[in-house]
């Protein structure tokens, strides 16, 4: 092969490779981050404190009580179509937690652990109830349950702060 032809061929190939790399990089930059696959189920922790709820979510590792845990307040976000198990605690008072639309309710009490299984539910928004048991009404304990597709949930979760900064959690083993 003539040496000139060979150089052109090499240049073409390099140009194609650069284009390929550039294209791949462009496509990669424009696509949303790939979510970790949805787990078969998920477990969250809900903690009552000073008449508010704190929601503790497992991070990408899917396991609670690890450094990537996230924390949220206000509305509760959950993934759709995945069985969810809620672990309820209280740091002070005795609280009621309920989702009437799902016929789900439980208490949160200091020193004890209670569980609430929600099963797998389709996406939707539902009323979230909370109150001091036998006590007055605390509107800040009420909000919305937002059940959304897994990808939306993980996107929302990434925006929530890490829990580890102010985590001081020592909860007992399951009581029920």
């Amino acid at each position, binding site marked *: 092969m003539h040496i000139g032809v060979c150089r052109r061929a090499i240049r073409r190939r390099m140009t194609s490779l650069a284009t390929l790399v550039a294209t791949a990089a462009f496509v990669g930059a424009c696509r949303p981050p790939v979510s970790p696959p949805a787990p078969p189920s998920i477990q969250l922790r809900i903690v009552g404190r*000073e008449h508010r709820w704190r929601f503790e979510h497992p991070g990408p590792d899917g396991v609670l009580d690890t450094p990537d845990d996230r924390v949220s307040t206000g509305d509760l976000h959950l993934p759709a179509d995945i069985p969810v198990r809620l672990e309820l605690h*209280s740091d*002070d*008072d*005795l609280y*009621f937690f*309920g989702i009437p639309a799902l016929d789900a*309710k*439980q*208490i949160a*009490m*200091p*020193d*004890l652990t*209670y569980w609430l299984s929600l099963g797998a539910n389709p996406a939707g928004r539902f009323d979230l109830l909370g109150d*001091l*048991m*036998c*006590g*007055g009404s605390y509107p800040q304990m009420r909000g919305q349950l937002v059940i959304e597709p897994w990808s939306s949930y993980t996107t929302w979760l990434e925006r929530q702060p890490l829990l580890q900064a102010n985590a001081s959690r020592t909860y007992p083993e399951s009581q*029920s």
Partner: protein
Amino acid sequence: MNLRRPSPIPPAALAAAILVFAATGGGGAAVTPSAPDASSDGAATGAAPSEGAPAPAAAGEDAATPPRVDMPQDLHPYFIDGRKQVQLATKGSSTVDRDFQFTNHLADTGITFVSHETDDSAKTYKPVHYDHGTALAVADVDGDGLTDLYFVRQVGPNELWRNVGGGKFVDFTAEAGVAVPDKIGSSAAFADIDNDGDPDLYTTSIRGGNVLFENDGKGHFTDVTAASGLAYTGHSGSPLFFDYDRDGRLDLLLCNIGVFTTDTLRTSAVNPPGETLAAGELQFYDGFEDAFGGHLKPERTERSLLFHNEGGMTFADTTDATGLVDDGWTGDATVLDGNEDGWPDVYVLNMQGNDGYWQNDGGKRFTNERESVFPKTPWGSMGVKSFDVDNDGHQDLYVTDMHSDMSAVADPLAEKRKSAMMWPDDYTATDGTSIWGNAFYHNLGGGKFEEVSDAIGAETFWPWGLSVGDLNADGFDDAFVAGGMGYPFRYGVNSLLINDGGKKLLDSEFILGIEPRINDEFAGPQFVLDCSGADKDHSDCVGREGKILVWGALSSRSSAIFDVDGDGDLDIVVSEINSPPLVLESDLAQVRPTTTHLNVRLKGTRSNRDGFGSKVTVVVGDRRIVQVYDGNTGYLSHGLLPMYFGLDGAAAADSVEVLWPSGETQTVAGPLEAGSTVAVEEPATAN
């Protein structure tokens, strides 16, 4: 920050406000705000400033009464007029006599007692059992034939008011020596423990120790606790005296609630008026924030105790020996011979779970037969009374349920329904064996009961104690059910249920003037807050500055039914929370002079001197009017009262039959003139 933490309170301002309140008989009209722009806050009807608007500051540090702030915002219940009209419209549905009225005559009685609960039930409110209030016990302590009143207080001394006749009372506390000023009071019972013919007194408290007093017959009491064996210290509720082994001496079931307090002592911010303690001297144990989950924590169980009367004012603990081991959260209990074998059984309330029904086996052993006899019981049982609603000779059982009514916000127009229980099964923890409201067990005989609360009309809302008595003197016992939660909740009515021939309990509180409360007074002063100072973080201070006087809904706890003014009809004395009592006097004897009744006083000889456990039947023609004398006067309360039998207009009774606890049957032949008192003394030897 927790907004409900304690902080110092201006005691002079609170005392002034409460004293004015007491002096006006609970009326709000005299507590007019001193600040010129606060007049709209002080309307007696309960008008309140708009939510979020800053309340006007007090005129200055020396202002006698800070401006009133209602919590919740509008304490005039919007539903009250509608409910009144609905009930009045039902009056014609029955011919039972409801053509008379009750009126609060507190101001005429001379009684100045004002109930004070701990701060956990007021300024630093939390859902803890302190808000169950205190007892009202009654007895003729000095032997003058008139029934005296003993009010129990949480903060400050208890008070004994001696009946001097004509509906008048004088403070007899100091002379009697029964103030118990240094304890957080709970309950009290009068009973003749040593069978010497006068009522002795046992008072209970929350972790202050219980006290047994011996009466000298003239109303002077001596503390004999130390040698009595009854010096229990815990979270005690009602003391129930009865003779479980029928040996002629009254034994004691001491109802203990459960451990609802922490070990942290707090100084009361309330300055009780007119007592010997310096302001802030009295301390109380801080309640658990999760007290109403106490039944889920076995370590908080506080067992009720059975004591056998050994004579000589001494008792021995026989709880384990008899097997009456009840671990429920128990404020009260009642005696009931459910299987009619002559041995007194005991129905023990549980305010957070299943009740207990302890059948008495020959005075030696007790067995809990609740599952077989009462397969479902109210979940949050608070008050109880055994009585014969239809005069069939079988004792029925009425149980009120307060705590089920805390699970959901009830429509005020639908309070005759059972609770729409919202709490999860893990919390109620009774495996489907609960009734979410009051129960009325109709005794079918043969030890069998049928629950008929809805059919007979026994459901009420936010009920505490109940008392029974024949308020219209027609020969059937009626019921008064104390109700309401008080601060920081909305107003809840008291209930008056008139017995329609044993078939139905008719709602009658509006018809007979119990509700609306006199002058539409639904609220009273609770405490003072300094919203610019120490209390600025209190939730009631949001959007407010300066000192405010927080008003809350009035609410009742216990009651006693007896003839307060001696006019021949039955009146109702009601113990309130954080406010003066009610003395609801009936005008039945005035509006219907043909009303007739018979009083019966018992004197046991082989049986206990008080005759507790006696079944008394008054025979009038072909009617038999049946009562069992048990000393139960209301929630937390026991005492000694003459038995009152309405004769439904008859001029005389034909006879009185008494079945004594000893088994002796005695008949007093008539005619027994209406209006008289029949004294029945048990024969000293068996017939």
